[in-house]
């Protein structure tokens, strides 16, 4: 296809992405290199319904002048990336000096906010993604074997975990897993432990979040696999059958290789989405035991009255870099495919 035709076809899509995604990303990266001007403070007397207090306050006029001169703030280079709220190299060094064993070192390093969040994010990504793929595949095999009449409703109900807004989904589930809720109480009976509470221990909180993650994303994998199954070539299946392959062998040697490209596609999307996990943490009030990179960003931007743009920008850039690292194997594969094709 000539360049001109190509650019005409891709133009609307590219324009939308450049304007509303690339441009903001550019400004995010730029912003992460600056910090706010030194604040000029004045002491003022505040009076209100509860009496008067003397407090410090920003001199807005003086600040406006500073900002007019240098709108982006003070140049900080990669300082924000390395500070205690992010990669914290300095603190890691201190911890390294004062700890004797690897165990102690890791223990203290994992207490730093960024690494704590990264730990949970990675655990979530690498546990949830494979389970989503396996569960989705099994459901697809099962549904595929159902009589046609039953398929429609089953597909609809299977999609529900993905459709119901996580806002409410997690609220309802949060009450269901409460120690007095229907799921929580049932689990207590099953395990014969009346003090069992999914919300109380860090381990169980993590498990709850993982289970929710799998439950929420399995329908996506299911739909994609189910469709893929419709396309498994019949003649290959039949020749396998003629060769005396058992059902298990058919699945293993015919179906799975055929669906491999789909596995890659789902893994790509799931790795990316799971790496940005955020909603379940808030939905399940799990902040005490689990924080993710997206949670840190949210906390910087929305947790307070004055947002910390540079800090949020730095975490966002690091998150994006993390996604790129995660996806490298997939990207290399795509590159090879592309070259073979071209």
């Amino acid at each position: 296809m000539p360049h001109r035709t190509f650019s005409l076809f891709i133009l609307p899509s590219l324009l939308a992405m450049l304007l509303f995604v690339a441009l903001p990303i550019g400004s995010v990266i730029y912003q992460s290199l600056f910090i706010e001007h030194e604040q000029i403070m004045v002491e003022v007397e505040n009076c209100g319904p509860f009496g008067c207090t003397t407090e410090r306050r920003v001199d807005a006029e003086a600040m406006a002048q500073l900002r007019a001169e240098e709108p982006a703030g003070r140049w900080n280079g990669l300082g924000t990336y390395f500070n205690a709220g992010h990669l914290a190299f300095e603190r890691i060094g201190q911890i390294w000096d004062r700890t004797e064993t690897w165990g102690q070192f890791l223990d203290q390093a994992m207490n730093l906010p960024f690494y704590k969040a990264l730990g949970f994010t990675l655990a979530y990504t690498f546990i949830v993604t494979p389970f989503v793929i396996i569960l989705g595949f099994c459901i697809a095999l099962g549904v595929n074997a159902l009589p046609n009449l039953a398929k429609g409703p089953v597909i609809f109900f299977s999609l529900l975990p993905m459709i119901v807004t996580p806002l409410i989904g997690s609220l309802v589930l949060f009450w269901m897993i409460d120690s007095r809720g229907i799921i929580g109480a049932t689990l207590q009976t099953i395990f014969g432990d009346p003090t069992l509470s999914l919300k109380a221990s860090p381990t169980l909180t993590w498990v709850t979040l993982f289970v929710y993650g799998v439950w929420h994303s399995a329908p996506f994998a299911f739909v994609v696999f189910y469709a893929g199954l419709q396309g498994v070539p019949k003649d290959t299946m039949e020749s396998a059958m003629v060769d005396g392959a058992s059902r298990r062998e058919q699945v293993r040697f015919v179906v799975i290789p055929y669906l491999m490209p789909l596995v890659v596609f789902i893994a790509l999307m799931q790795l990316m989405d799971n790496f940005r996990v955020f909603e379940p943490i808030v939905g399940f009030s799990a902040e005490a035991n689990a924080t993710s990179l997206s949670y840190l960003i949210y906390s910087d931007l929305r947790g307070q009255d004055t947002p910390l743009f540079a800090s949020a920008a730095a975490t966002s850039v690091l998150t994006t870099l993390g996604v790129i690292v995660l996806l490298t194997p997939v990207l290399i594969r795509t590159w090879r495919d592309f070259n073979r094709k071209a």
Partner: protein
Amino acid sequence: MTKTLLATTSLAALFGLAGAASAQCTIEGEGSVRILANDFQALHAVVSRATECASDSVEVTTNETTEHKDIQVAALSTDPAAYTVAVVANGSLVPLLNEGLTRPLDDLVAQYGQNLQESQLIRINGEIMAIAFMANSQMLHYRADLLEENGIAVPTTYEELLEASAALREAGVMETPLYASFLPGWDLGEEFINMYMGSGQPFFEDGSAQVAINNEAGIAALEMMKAMTEYMGPDMMTYNSNEAQPYWENEEVAFMTGWGSRTAAFIDENGAVPEIAAATEVVAMPSWGGNGIPATTLWWDGFAMAKNISEEDAAASFQAMMYALSPELVADPEVAGLAAWLVNGYEPQPAAEGVIANMQAGAAPYPMTPYMGLLHTALGDNLAEFLQGQESAEEALEDVEAAYTTAATEAGFIQ
């Protein structure tokens, strides 16, 4: 930073009674009124009254959204500003002041503010920058019937509160009689700030943004919170004010630190469990460490006005808000029950009694210092491990200090 509570306003003036003059909304001149507000019932009552002022010459638009805090700075930065009126609280006014986006209201108050009371005026360096109309704070909710049956006096200090909880547990009445919002994030940060307020110590070093909580008072406040966890349920790290009611109605807790704005639901005798509602009472938050200061912060909700708007719009908007906040607003008993109003003509309801009790006992307002929000976030994010027994109080405060210092440096408050 010295925080001196110079005067406790006369309560009669604060929750004052006055003759109500009822009238229709008439606005002199023309203009456009554009209100940005949070989305909850009490504010809705105010905002919807302001919309009654719409006429041929005055246009009134409102935007009530839970995300108001996140859009207000951007919305008021443009010229002309997207909104003329921003409904704020003492915390959310600060970012607008930092950017210099609000206008002094002295002239408008002089011209149209006949119904306002002195206590409603938020003065900063002598200039009126906002008008408050609601007050709020946390207060101690307790089950009067259980205390009476077990011969326990109403606790006035945290030490007594712990004893009372122990007594209830020993008497076999309740295993986990305490409820406080320990959910990490804003709630947990607020709990620590409340507790630390009870020590009377400053949060920051005098004349700088260096944090000063990593001291004996800070450790004592944390230890007190830790002592409370002894009497709280196993799920305490998920406790927040949204989830409190089911615990209360299930008779699992006898003491709760809760917001005055939510008290009405707990004492509603038409609610789910009338017997419990009837036995629920509120008092001022307890003090601790022999300081006699209630461990809480006082809050107000009010409105400020954008700087980048025309004089006509400003006048029309202020008049509309004055009409909305006239004594007629609280003449409706349903509206009066929604909050502790500071509006002329309001007669104190239970929700307000707790606020008054806190004030009388010497509680201070939530600091309007620009970097307070940064400390609040740092606290909310770094105390959970200590309360769950994975860290010492010193380590927790060290983490808070590190997180705060990083954030405050980035924001330009510390060099």
